[in-house]
């Protein structure tokens, strides 16, 4: 799950980045409006966490530009200015949620997850797929009621495929969901993770489409 964090303050930015990463998100951190706009143009994000007081391009302008380009990525605003008029104007500019500073990291993560599952058309955290039940927040997968031990990355890939059922995802796309900008990408990692998933869940769940990528078929 790739998230763009836009925050100019070093201490808050590094904290939110670490917190989101702990929660299993791949985080890209942009420190000003221009860098954020550039990242949004080149990468597909599942979610944007946006501070409003930004150098070069204000958060509100960035958000308005994003919505003007018909980009529907969920946006959560994170700001010290959290009076009612501030919230209203933020939401009116196209934000999906609003969180005032100082905030609780667990609440931020919970709100991010809520935004993500709404974007995928779910109302609960758990994803049900045949015999499988996946909880993306708790990183747990059960098959016919029995726990299946998955690593964090394996779980993330499974969730990514399950939330895009019937839609083939390329290797690069899956890599993007795993690694933020600073993280080093291991070669062949995706193939290794897919093969592990097939061993643990059965070969039929993930189908390979040659030259395109991987897909979990719609049931």
């Amino acid at each position, binding site marked *: 799950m790739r998230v763009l964090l836009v925050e*100019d*303050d*070093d*201490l*808050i930015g*590094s*904290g*939110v980045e*670490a*917190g989101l990463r*702990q929660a299993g998100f791949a985080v890209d951190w942009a*420190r*000003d409006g221009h860098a954020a706009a550039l990242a949004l143009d080149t990468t597909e994000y599942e979610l944007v966490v946006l*501070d*409003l*007081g*930004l*150098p*070069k391009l*204000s*958060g509100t302008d960035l958000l308005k530009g994003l919505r003007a380009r018909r980009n529907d990525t969920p946006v959560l605003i994170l*700001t*010290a*200015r959290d009076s009612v008029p*501030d919230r209203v104007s933020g939401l009116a500019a196209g934000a999906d949620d609003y969180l*005032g*500073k*100082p*905030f*609780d*990291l*667990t609440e931020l993560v919970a709100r991010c997850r809520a935004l993500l599952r709404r974007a995928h058309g779910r109302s609960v955290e758990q994803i049900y797929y045949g015999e499988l039940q996946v909880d993306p927040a708790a990183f747990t997968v059960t098959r016919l009621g029995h726990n299946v031990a998955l690593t964090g990355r394996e779980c993330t890939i499974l969730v990514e495929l399950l939330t895009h059922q019937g839609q083939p995802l390329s290797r690069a796309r899956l890599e993007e969901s795993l690694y933020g900008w600073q993280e080093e990408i291991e070669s062949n990692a995706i193939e290794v993770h897919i093969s592990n998933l097939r061993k643990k869940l059965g070969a039929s769940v993930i189908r390979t489409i040659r030259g395109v990528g991987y897909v979990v078929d719609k049931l």
Partner: protein
Amino acid sequence: MMTRSIRRRLMLLVLASVTIVWAVTLITSYRQAEHEVGEWDNGRLEQAAGTLLVVDSANLKKLAEVGFIGSDDDDSRRIHTEETSRELQFEVRAADGQLLASTPKVPLTLGADALVGTSRSGAYTLEVDGHHWNTYTLHSSVTGRSARIFERVGGRSNLTSDVSRRIARPLAAALPVLALLIWFGISRSFAPLALVSREIGARGADKLDPIEVQQVPDEIRPLIDALNKLLDRLMKSFLRERAFTSDAAHELKTPLAAIKVQAQVALAAQDAVEQRLAMQRVVEAVDRSSHLAQQLLVLARLDETSLTELSSVAMNTIARNCIASRQASGLPSGVALSLVQNSLMSAQADPTLLQILIDNLLDNALKYGSCNGLIEVAIFQEQLNPVLSVRDNGHGVALADRVRLGDRFFRVLGNRESGSGLGLSIVTRIATVFGAHVRYTPGIGGKGLAVTVSFPSAGSRGESFEQADTPRHFDKPGES
């Protein structure tokens, strides 16, 4: 008598003036009337004496018996019926002084010879037995007779005093009526004042909009205008303070948010390295918020102590101390800090405040100067003014941003340093206390920033203080 009520004072003044004017008018009129009456009386007596001189002896005797009234005037006859003293007494003597006729009440002390000769003809006032008599003596050159008319003085002046009393009585009666009318008039004139008082009295502490009263008299208009100007200034200062409090709260929220998020990262961290890093950042964020709190306190104290006693302070000594303590606590590697122009200059200042000012300028130069930068402190004289300048060769500040450098919480966007945004506003505030002027120009070799504090030359403090006391701006630098 000085009374505090304008109404009462006006009342007393008007009434006193009216009374005085009336009294003066009455007195002068009385004198005038007395004079006129006196002349008229003498004429009357002369006429009576003339009549007596031509009356024959038999008729004289008869006249002396029935009495003689000197005037046929209607008014005086009426007065005569009231006042018996108006009856005229007379004596007529022959040329040799023999008494031909006299009324019974003629004062007898006058010798027969008193009427002889012409020397004493005319009007005289005599005193006989404690009574004053007006007399008129007339000689006839044909018969040689003399006639003298006597009239008691008391009776004579009655006419004037009676007329005066008749005029004065209604005037005295009019005085209370006049007082009442004046009281009513003044009360009506003061009604707008009461209206303004009610309008001001009904205000709460937070109602600072201008006083709107229609139909205000011209005399009260300046007062209302002055009050409105004061209210306007109060309103602006109130809004400024409110904006400052709100900005300060927001600025404090940022380090608090950082502390919280880093602490939660540390709590949830799996490996020790990540945990340690997060805890270090917690400490950093706490330092930042305490720095902010410190700066806010300095500003608050500066606002309290705007009447600091200034004395002559050797600027180079304090600058050298500030630089020495920086060097002792360790400069970032590659940064050179020096006192380049070291004139023996003293300025009207407070040593502690001057030190805070220089420290803040050094803080800024260290933060925003370049890594291997130069920082120069200079003290020199410029057109009689002692000047302190701190300049660096860092990234500098764009011209558009320079005018806002002294604003509270203003930070140049895009800089990565975690300042409070208060440093230069503290500098500006202290400069205001000193009556000094702060200028921002490009720094060393046209790069970086130079902050120049120009102190007033001895003897010109007041004027430049006014200039430095312009309202501060509180524009928000943007949300964060």
